[in-house]
């Protein structure tokens, strides 16, 4: 964080200097004010007569100090400017001012503007910011079909209930979509029932028979897949008297169970509805923030080496971007000889060593004796 630390240090210096200056000004001026006030009181007491020689002397001296103090304060303030401008220089040095050179003006403007607005609006719905989305629609005159909004209303309603520890809407939804969830190998419904069961056990006073009744009714269909978990859940009954928090099952009471169920629900619901798990806009922006410094760097290097036209090839970025998180949505098969993607299956050849190569290239490789790897082309 050198960039931030550098600026942080300079701004701290500015703040401390200003505070010192302010205190100094207050005390100096306060002292002078007090002096003058007392002198004035004395002179007022003289009434209609003349002031004495000593008073006049004192007055002259004090007035001299006043003039000197105020002009000095003004000069001291002016001297602070160098510290202030140092902050500006630190910002310019450590942060890129001109990132706009990378972007193409026409890509997002004009008739494409409504697409950007659409993406932003969908993002607001996804995040549950329904009133902000409505405001956005009003201000941009966007027309979103109702079907685009419906799934998000439902999702946010259920999530809202889950955040309030109300499992009802989620359970209804899970039961309605049981078949589709099973196809996805989702254990959402079971996890919801598990949480409901734990809640029954943790409420005071505990109604054990109610909990057992719940387990009997709802756990049975899940025994095949979740046998061990159900066994441990029934084991909880042993510790009800002494309190679950003192048992080996204390972790089941943790509030992280609730955050986890929200995540599981979001993931499964989005998967079912064919939506992406995370907001597309968020993924894209995070990817862009990772990509941007790399691209700025390469642009700088190209400019230095005076390779201006390479950037204008609109086919591919000049450099590959490494994403640490799961940003790899498609797994390309790259021909190692040509460094291009092999898209068609018929072009791909799996050799005995499982090398993926474009078929037409193999002949060239065999001919080209410079390569050290030998290939055996089986008929």
């Amino acid at each position, binding site marked *: 964080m050198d960039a931030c630390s550098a600026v942080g240090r300079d701004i701290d210096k500015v703040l401390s200097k200003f505070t010192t200056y302010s205190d100094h000004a207050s005390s100096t001026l306060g002292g002078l004010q007090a002096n003058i006030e007392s002198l004035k009181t004395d002179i007022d007491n003289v009434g209609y007569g003349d002031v004495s020689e000593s008073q006049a002397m004192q007055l002259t001296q004090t007035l001299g100090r006043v003039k000197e103090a105020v002009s000095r304060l003004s000069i001291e303030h002016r001297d602070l400017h160098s510290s202030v401008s140092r902050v500006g220089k630190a910002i310019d040095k450590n942060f*890129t001012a001109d990132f706009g050179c990378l972007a193409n003006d026409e890509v997002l403007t004009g008739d494409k503007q409504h*697409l950007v607005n659409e993406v932003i609006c969908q993002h607001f719905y996804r995040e549950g910011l329904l009133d902000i989305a409505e405001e956005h629609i009003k201000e941009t005159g966007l027309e979103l079909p109702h079907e685009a909004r419906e799934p998000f209303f439902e999702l946010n309603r259920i999530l809202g209930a889950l955040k309030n520890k109300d499992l009802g809407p989620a359970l209804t939804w899970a039961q309605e979509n049981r078949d589709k969830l099973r196809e996805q190998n989702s254990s959402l419904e079971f996890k919801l029932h598990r949480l409901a069961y734990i809640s029954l056990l943790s409420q005071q006073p505990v109604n054990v028979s109610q909990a057992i009744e719940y387990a009997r009714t709802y756990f049975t269909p899940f025994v095949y897949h979740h046998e061990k978990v159900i066994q441990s859940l029934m084991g909880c009954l042993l510790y009800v008297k002494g309190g679950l928090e003192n048992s080996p099952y204390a972790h089941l009471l943790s509030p992280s169970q609730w955050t986890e169920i929200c995540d599981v629900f979001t993931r499964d619901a989005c998967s079912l509805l064919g939506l992406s798990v995370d907001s597309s806009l968020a993924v894209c922006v995070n990817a862009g923030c990772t990509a941007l410094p790399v691209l700025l760097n390469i642009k700088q290097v190209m400019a230095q080496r005076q390779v201006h036209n390479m950037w204008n090839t609109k086919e591919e970025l000049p450099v590959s971007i490494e994403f640490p998180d799961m940003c790899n949505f498609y797994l390309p098969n790259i021909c190692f000889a040509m460094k291009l993607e092999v898209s068609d299956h018929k072009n791909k050849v799996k050799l005995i060593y499982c090398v993926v190569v474009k078929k037409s290239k193999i002949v060239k490789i065999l001919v080209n004796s410079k390569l050290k790897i030998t290939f055996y082309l089986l008929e």
Partner: protein
Amino acid sequence: MADVSSIEHPTLKVPYEILNKKFRLAQKTLDREVCHVTTAVTELERVLFTENRSAAQISTLLGGVVEKLNSFKRKAEEATQEEIECGRVVKRRVDHLKEHDSLNQAVVAEWKKSRLDRLLVEYLLRTGCYNTATKLAASRGIEGLTNLDVFLVAREVEQSLAARDTTKCLAWCHDNKSKLRKLNSSLEFNVRMQEFIEFIKGDRRMDAIRHARKHFTGQDTAHLPSIQRCMALIAFPADTEVCPYKDLLSGSRWDDLIAQFRGENLKLYQLSSQSAFSVVLQSGLSALKTPHCYRGSTGHNPDCPVCLRSLNALASPLPYAHCSQSRLVCNISGDQLNENNQPLMLPNGYVYGQKCLKNQTDIHNLTLSCVKLHEELDKASFKAVKVFLM
């Protein structure tokens, strides 16, 4: 860390510019007040010097000095407090940016979310969706981290210009006089010219001439041709068809003024004409764009942002991501297949990662169900597969 320094320049530069402006204002105030105090003091000193000792007179003059001194102290305090507050805004933003590097994953995730909100607020402000931007900033509590105020002040000026009222714009020009002079801005001159043209339109030619006398003399010589053209307008009626005088009378000149104001406002705060959001979005789309996204709807990954209809259309003129290596990933666990996670081929031809097959066999003892085909297979028949990735 690098991505912070790539796009966060405006986040820090704008409050810095505000601090700078406050500083200059404070310095002017202090100098003015010093002048007042010094004048009052000098007056009194002069009286004392003339050996006049009348207590009443001295007391009155002294009262004047006290008043000026009090005023100086008060104004100095106010100005310094405002400067400190501006400095604190810069500090708060710097501290916020530092959180990007935190070791706590939850803090970093929260920070990224906040970054997206900040980018959105700025983009919404630039495209004129002021209410949405204000609501979003308020709901996420990020007003202090965005440059909302700059754009809202600008919006007021733009609205007044759209209503053909020049007062707010001229006030803004006066407020930022020194910086605009450094930028060689012709905004104020253009506004004055527009006022002249409005006089002509309203057939108030004498007023127009008086206005010209007041504001056009003493202008830069570079403006002389425009002034001459304007003055010639006096000779033409308001509905003339003769160009270029017809264009001068056109209402679209107000839109040009608004556009010029917007540009100058951005330059004043050293903001780029492109919003950070659009730059980041384009880079992101480009970095994620693969030919798969444009091959029709089969095999679409719903998680890929570029496959979303609207983003897909936006990304089409952008370059593809550059990929020089094949990437293979275990279908069950999602981990990469590399030297730490050797690919193993099952007899049915499917290849999975060694780590995840080990986990699976622990649970189900010696046999393994192939997840894809739900077949039971014998562990002994697994073959190691070497995959060359170059």
